[in-house]
Structures are given as C-alpha cells and as structure tokens.
C-alpha cells in the first residue's frame, strides 16, 4: 500500500464515505462536460426530476464533433448540429457554464481546463473522456468516466470508486535535441505495456519531469490511459504555480499564497511509499514512433519493425495482426515509410508549444505534394496565440492547412478522417484500427516535430536531421 503520496492525500481529503459495497464515495472538485458523453446523463437527470447539485463546479465545452474547416453554425452534419444544440440546451436548463464557439474560449476539454485556470493542484477532476488523465499534470487526481458516472457527478458531485495502487515512474537524464515529452511517454508505454497500468495511478517524477513545462507535463499525463493507468499525475511545483497564476479561474492574487501553501501540502512527501517504482533513462532516447495498432507497439526512429521471432511467444500473434493491418513487413525500417496525411493537434499535442515546435521545422520549407497536412489548434485561445505569433502564416506558406479548434482527426467524429488505407503521421494518442475514421486506415503516432518532418519528406524521417541542419 502506498503512503504519503499525493494520491493518498487527495483521496483521503475527498473521501465522503465507505459505501456498503466497499467502494469509496469520493467528492469531485471539478467536473468537465462535452457534447458526446453527456446528453444521456442529462436525460437521466431529467427523467428522475433531479437537479445538478453543484452547478458552479461543472463546466462544458464542445470539441469532438466540431468541424475544423468550417465552424459556421448550423454545422452541415445534422447529427453534429443536434449534439451542439443539445449541449447548449442542457447546460442552459441546468445552470452550467458553457464555453461555446462564440465565447472564443472553446476548445478540447483537456486543453481549456488548464488554460482557463480551472484545473488546479489537489483537486479531484472527472470528465466523460479517457484523456482526463491530462489534468494530473497539475497534481490533481483526474478520472475518465462513463456517462452513468457523469450523471452521478451531476447529481451528487461524487463518484463510487475503487482505490488504486501507485507506481512511481522516475524519469532521469537530459533529452537530446529532437526528442520530446511525447517520446518519453511512448517509451514508457512501450516498456510497461498497454495494460501495465491497470489498477495503478502513475506518478511521474524525476529531474527530467521537474524540468518540463506544463505543456510537456500534460503530454505525459495525457497518455497514462494508453498505458492502462486511469490516472497519472505530477507533483505540483513552482512551474505549476507560475502557469496557473493570473488565469481566469485561478485563485485571486490575495488568495494565491494561501492556495500555494495548500498545494505544497498535498504533494507526495520525500519519504512517500509506493507500490512500485520504475526508472526510465531519457538521455538515451531517440524519437519514438508507433508502427502497429496499439500505442505500445513502437520503435526508435533508427529501428526496424520487430519480427515475430524477436519477441516473446505471447506477443507474436499481436505483431502478426498489427503487420497484417498496417501492411508492413516484419524487419522493415520504420524510416522511409510513405505517409498520406500529417496531423498536428489533439489533447496530447495541440497546445501552443506543440505548434511552435512544428512551425520551427516547417518554417521556410514545403510539405510534400503527396501529403495532406493539417494543423489544428487545441483551443480558440491557442489559435489566437498562434496567429499572434504568426505561426499560421508559417504553416500556410509551407502548404499546410490551418484549422479551427477541435479534436479533429484524433477520433473521426467530425469531417477530418482518413480515407481507405491512408497512412497518417499523427501527433495524437491512439493508433487503434479504425480510430482515424477508416476501418482500413493506418496511424503512426509521433511527436509534432516528427509529424512536421514527415510531412516535408512525404515519409517517416528523423526530425533531428532538420534540427542539425
């Protein structure tokens, strides 16, 4: 049993009761809602004649179904338009603040929470989306939940949860140029496996994590769920506090020191005990890229797609299945694989720093004529910031499409989709079969800078060649 970790402290302070089933009832400090997983929850409330218990602790936006090329209402997709209208009506009826397109603060729910200062250390956070783990970057316990649980949070501000074990993932060493937070988290998933985190909360620590910006920390925590861990978190520090200060929903200036004292108090103690500890050396990492159909099937850019005889017997079948879907040959170089689509965006890598990294690579260069390149800011505020810095001009001059904010091609609930067996170089989080909208489509996950380099060459390449030159 872990002790004196942030996980233990925050869980204990939010525990309401032990339920008759043995699960804990846990208070949820911040609830985020989007259009896809909430309509049925609001319907259930309405059927029961219930109200939202703490309407000022729930915030809504829309992201999954929002088209990125043309955001004028009504949306041309009638189902998407109905979802948007339903969310507007539900939030209006139940008294919940809704960051609609017209507010200039709309965006991917996991990007706007931190951006608005809603996400803070020491909170419990829930959202009907598995990438809620992103918010753990601030030292919160952030749970992805289903729709029935969304109803429970709306109705009681609590959830029935089983407690987790805690694994410390200690990352040390200086990243080499061209290697990013995305590469670290892909490496962690490669090492621990896509189911290695089941039953665990992941605490990311070590000097490499401590040196990271909040944007980088969010990329790491975002993909905890891809490693099977429902939540991932990083202890808050000065970097966290500097990020939060002054944001719209941050504690006001006269309360900020009080807040910081509280936030410091909930961090894991130096003598905290963990259920498991894993060490990752970041200094030897090369850019990491997935070649298969799970986020754990990845290799370094200099490496080859594994052969069935090079892995454990239990992994052979999944390699064969992945190679069959991807139409790759075991032993083939990952470098040089041609791509059709390049996608920079998503809750994993759709923040301003991600766009800056992609722009550095694309500046003064042209994307290959064979590649459709789309750059999708994670929020309207990210879009405005990028345009203020002139990044949109760099992307457009390079031949990329500059879009409006949304989830875009990460999950195929909007017009941005792969066609047929197209291959995408994608800065998103999932390479599952069919994930990007075509049952035969193929996804290669990598960092935004690697996506930009692949867009230029028309094939998978090593972004470090662009950084050196």
């Amino acid at each position, binding site marked *: 049993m872990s002790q004196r970790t942030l996980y233990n402290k925050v869980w204990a302070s*939010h*525990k*309401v*009761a032990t*339920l*008759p*089933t*043995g*699960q804990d*009832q846990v*208070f949820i*400090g911040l609830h985020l809602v989007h259009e*896809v997983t909430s*309509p*049925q929850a609001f*319907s259930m409330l309405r059927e029961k004649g219930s109200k939202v218990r703490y309407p000022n602790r729930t915030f809504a936006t829309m992201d*999954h179904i929002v088209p990125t090329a043309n955001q004028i209402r009504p949306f041309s997709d009638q*189902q*998407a338009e*109905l979802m948007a209208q339903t969310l507007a009506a539900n939030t209006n009826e139940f008294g919940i603040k809704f960051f609609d397109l017209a507010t200039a603060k709309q965006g991917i729910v996991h990007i706007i929470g931190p951006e608005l200062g809603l996400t*803070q250390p*020491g909170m419990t956070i829930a959202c*009907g*989306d*598995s990438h809620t783990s992103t918010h753990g970057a601030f030292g919160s316990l952030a749970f*992805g939940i*289903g*729709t*029935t*649980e969304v*109803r*429970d949070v709306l*109705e*009681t*501000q*609590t*959830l*029935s*949860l*089983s407690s987790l074990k805690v694994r410390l993932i200690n990352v040390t060493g200086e990243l080499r140029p061209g290697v990013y937070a995305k590469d670290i988290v892909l490496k962690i998933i490669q090492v621990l496996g896509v*189911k290695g985190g*089941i039953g665990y909360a992941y605490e990311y620590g070590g000097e490499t994590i401590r040196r990271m910006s909040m944007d980088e920390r969010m990329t790491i925590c975002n993909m905890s769920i891809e490693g*099977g861990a*429902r939540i991932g978190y990083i202890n808050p520090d000065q970097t966290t506090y500097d990020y939060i200060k002054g944001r719209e929903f941050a*504690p006001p200036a006269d*309360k900020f020191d*009080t807040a910081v004292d509280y936030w410091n108090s909930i961090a894991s103690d130096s003598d905290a005990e963990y259920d498991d500890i894993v060490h990752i050396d970041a200094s030897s990492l090369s850019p990491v890229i997935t070649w298969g*159909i799970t986020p754990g099937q990845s290799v370094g850019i200099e490496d080859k797609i594994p052969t069935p005889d090079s892995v454990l017997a239990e992994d052979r079948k*999944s390699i064969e299945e992945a190679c069959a879907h991807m139409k790759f040959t075991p032993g083939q170089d990952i470098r040089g694989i041609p791509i059709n689509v390049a996608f920079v965006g998503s809750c994993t890598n759709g923040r301003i720093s991600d766009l800056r990294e992609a722009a550095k690579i694309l500046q003064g260069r042209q994307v290959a004529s064979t590649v459709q390149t789309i750059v999708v800011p994670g929020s309207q505020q990210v879009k405005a910031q990028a345009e203020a810095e002139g990044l949109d001009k760099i992307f457009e001059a390079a031949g990329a499409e500059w879009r409006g904010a949304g989830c875009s091609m990460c*999950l*195929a*609930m909007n017009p941005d989709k792969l066609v047929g067996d197209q291959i995408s170089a994608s800065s998103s989080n*999932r390479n*599952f*079969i*069919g*994930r990007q*909208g075509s*049952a*035969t489509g193929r996804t290669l996950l990598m960092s935004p800078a690697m996506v930009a380099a692949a867009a230029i060459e028309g094939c998978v390449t090593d972004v470090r060649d662009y950084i050196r030159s």
Partner: protein
Amino acid sequence: MESLKRVHITGTAVPIPGDDIDTDRIIPARFLKEITFERMGEFLFYDVRFDASDNIIEDYPLNLPEYQNPTFLIVGQNFGCGSSREHAPQAIMRFGIQAVIGESFAEIFAGNCKAIGVPVVTASAEDIATLSDYVAKNPDQPLDLNLESRTVSAGDKVIQVNIADERLSAFISGTWDASALLKANLDQIKQVGERLPYVQNFA
C-alpha cells in the same frame, strides 16, 4: 430490488479472439453522434461485423449461425481499452450480452460495465482457452456464471473467476447503479465540500 441482483447468469457464449480490443473497435466513433444509447446494440463491433458496403462478414464470430443470441462474451487481455465511451458496454448490453468473461479488462470499461449492471469477470489465460475451446465444440451448450462462488461451469468443467470484492458485492446486492448509495450521504458530501479549501475559494 430482486430484479437488479446479479448472482446466477446462464446462457450460451461466443468467443471474441484477440487481445487489446479497444472501445473504438467495440463501437466505432461515428456511431457516438446519437444523443441516446437506444440503437447502440445494432452497431456493436460494426466494422468487423460488416464490410465497407454494410454487408455481413459471415465468418466473424457474432455472425456465425452457431453463435446467435449469446449471453456471454469470452475475451482476451485488456478488453475495452482506450476511450471511456459508455457506448461500448451499452452496445454489448443492448446486443443481449449479460456478462463478459476475459483474461483482463481496462479499468474504465470495467467500471462502466459495473455501472450498468453487466458483470465482467477475469480468469487465467489457460482457463479462458479451456472455456473458448469448450464453447467452440459445444456452441449450443449454456455456461453458468455463479458470482457467489466465483465460478463458471461449462459442462463438467468448472473454472474459477475473479472479480473485485466491492464489485461482487454491488452485483449480488443489486446496488451496481450507485446512484441511491451516493445520494444517501448528502450531508457528508456537503461537509467534505465545506472543508476543501478550493471549494471554499481559499477563504
């Protein structure tokens, strides 16, 4: 409460081969654009049950004549990984499945199944292979899941299954929908809110 209790479940099963079957595979995202769960059963495993022209893929297990109207799914490791969409367990339940037996399950998926009254239980790889083998040879023979004894009977074979104590308790007592349990503690909820500094705006 009687009808909410999940103690004994009996019926035929269908093995779904493969590990890491994610919720996008269980229900592709394009079907999530409906604002109710009503039609989700129709879309279960859509892109492996049907081809790009919506024709039935005849050799997919759920389409085989011997596996019609199953009560159980038998699955591999890390079933239900990926997205938290409750549409996935809703599709399974609305297809008529009452319980899922597998090597392991993703955490959010298992929680969503519990919340809608569908037990998911785990067994060793060896036992899952035994069970799949039995079902392949005897597709018309019912399995019997007994949650109280944590066993699945298949003909004369009996295998042990695992389920967390608190989930077991919720199914057996019929309180898998936590709503009533949570609402019983409204006073305590208020008290916790009052002692959390951020809920009180650090006053």
